[in-house]
């Protein structure tokens, strides 16, 4: 059973193209920490075309978060924007990419 983060990024990769990102070109890297163990997701966007990998590359926007927190975000239990405002996620780089990207995050489970 894959975790929510893996499921989210895998599904994103399978989508290949996302109309909500057609205005976006650039890359986002998610550096996640799980009890000292690091994992990484790189999302490259080219006018809505999406490629997902674990590559260690420079990105236009880098997010750092606790893995458990990102699992909750990826499963609709937490709101990403509030987490950013709280300082639970830190961001470096192009914030507009993040604004566009957060539109892909799932709705809260309670609102389904």
């Amino acid at each position: 059973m894959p975790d929510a983060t893996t499921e989210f990024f895998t599904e994103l990769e399978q989508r290949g193209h996302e109309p909500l990102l057609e205005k976006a070109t650039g890359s986002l890297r998610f550096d996640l920490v799980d009890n000292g163990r690091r994992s990484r997701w790189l999302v490259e966007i080219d006018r809505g075309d999406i490629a997902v990998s674990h590559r260690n590359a420079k990105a236009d926007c880098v997010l750092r978060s606790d893995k458990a927190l990102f699992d909750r975000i990826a499963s609709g239990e937490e709101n990403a924007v509030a987490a950013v405002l709280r300082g639970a996620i830190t961001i470096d780089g192009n914030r507009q990419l993040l604004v566009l990207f957060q539109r892909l995050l799932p709705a809260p489970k309670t609102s389904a």
Partner: protein
Amino acid sequence: MNGGLVRILDGNTFVVSDSRGDIEASLTDPTGLFSFDTRFLSTWILTVNGERLNPLSVDDLAYFESRFFLVPGTGTVYVDSKLSVIRRRAVGDGFHEELTILNHDEEPVELTVRIEAACDFADLFEVKDALQKKGAYSRRVSGRKLLLGYERESYIRQTAISASAPAKVDEQGLTFSVYVAPQGSWTTDLDVVTAAGAGGTYSRPKYQRGQRGARPNMERSLERWLADAPRLESESDSLRATYRRSLVDLAALRFSPPVVGGAKSLPAAGLPWFMTMFGRDSIFTSLQALPFTSELAATTLRALGDWQGTRTDDFRDEDPGRILHEMRYGEMTAFEERPHSPYYGCADATMLYVVLLDEYERWTGDRRLVRELRNEARAALRWIDDYADLMGNGYVSYQRRNEETGLENQCWKDSWDSISYRDGRLPGFPRATCELQGYAYDAKVRAARLAREVWGDPDWADELERQAADLKRRFNRDFWVEDGGYFALALDSEGKQVDSLTSNNGHLLWSGIVAKSKAKSVVRNLMGPRLFSGWGIRTLAEGEGRYNPIGYHVGTVWPFDCSFIAWGLRRYGFKEEAAQVAGGILDAAQFFDGRLPEAFGGYERGVTKYPVQYPTACSPQAWSTGAPLLLLRTMLGLEPVDDRLLVDPMLPDSIGLVALLDIPGRWGRMDAFARGRAAVLPPRARSLSPARG
């Protein structure tokens, strides 16, 4: 300035102090240094030899800068001091203050100068609602700096205070031992900077000693902003003053949405509580300002498009395609005690977004942006059909899903008692207010034009036009109050008319949803004595159950409201009536030094002789600032048609000659000339001008 308070701002950072320059905030008091919806300084008190100072005068040098002239001693009738104290303060990423003491005596003086400093790190919501903090405070001296901090889990905010002159720093402030020679002076720079996040880097004060020109975050300085705007020449000193005031205040209200970033600006809603992105306010203000600057509209369209809703989120009242209501950055939003990250509970912004997109293209010819935002426009139009028709009766209505902290009334009249029947009863939810149907109609008609001319989708255009025509037909049947000759304020949850007479009828004229055969009757009501006060159109008509001339949305006159009503009157050919409304509001502006308040009392003009300001927290308010601009447009009859600008003026005779030079648009730059001809009459002595067009 409101209640003796002095306000300066830069983006969403602002300082509110008393006329001495001191800050002494209690939790509920709106003074302090604020940034990102958080107070970073709540105490800032200057004493000389243990005494508070006495204000002689305050110069508002610019929207970001003021200067306080002070003398020691308080409470005396006349002042004969050997000392002068000058505080010159500029806000920008914290603030910078130059403190100067002049000794006018033949003898030297030795003084103890002290600045007391503290901070409660209150969220703006806490200041408004008086709530208690949940995190921990710290105070620390580090080298020559005083560090104030607040911490709640990962949420960390800090303020650092330092001085250029030698100071003894303790946890409560800074003390200077000062010697001033005869006829000499002493000075120090004080810097207050802010930081957010763990190990957060402090902002660097934007202004330093000797820097005098404005350094806005925006691409253009105030000087460039003013120089780029059309030039107004007029015999009316008051009109010229109001115009200049509006441009300067609009510059001050420009705001770069922090999370979207970039150097582009959009209008924030108002000072000090609403220095943030609001869907409705930003759109209305951008519409008002379009003939003068298109930058605000372009940024508003982009930023609101980036944040357009994609999910169903009950806490935030978010739906796919919905345009946001309000974005906030403070602690309560961060911990989801408030839903503003962002909050979407607004029933009109989504439709107004499409209206702005079309109006923007008509003025600028910028088809690139219109093409870029096609998906957003499509999603917005889909929201009207799929998410906004809560009663399944073909009308847009609203009902909050967040029943704890969401907004009850999601139209511009958003106070609790704004929507009522004639007898004063309040309807249940959902509520389908009339202006929402007008906006939906206008959005579809305008989108149809864009679909045909820009997006190359004539089938969609036909479909939109068919829907719009159907909506107009049904609306004129279902909302028409037969015995009053006007449109009902709303339909209630049972589809019955909420039958009070309101200013919303003017927005209906603006939207174009009013059948031509009904326009004259609507205008007669708008300009009649129950709604027209002589200064402007009351939000709710005299004689209705809840009418109160100083009730927020139930009797006051809102300059913004009147500016759109004037536009609506023009749209249906009632030029003289539009001039009447414009003349009334512009006359009122004189009483506020050209800065129109959010609202003023609905008292009849002949009775009070001057407009009674509604005691409001925000000034300047963006859409009040924009009102004189839109009124200028309507008086001059400016209308973009293809690549030309039509000018068809009708001005109140009190205004005399007016020239608006270098109006920017797809035609390049054009001039408009006019002379006042319409007599401004009291509300009871008027016959309607014939409807044309």
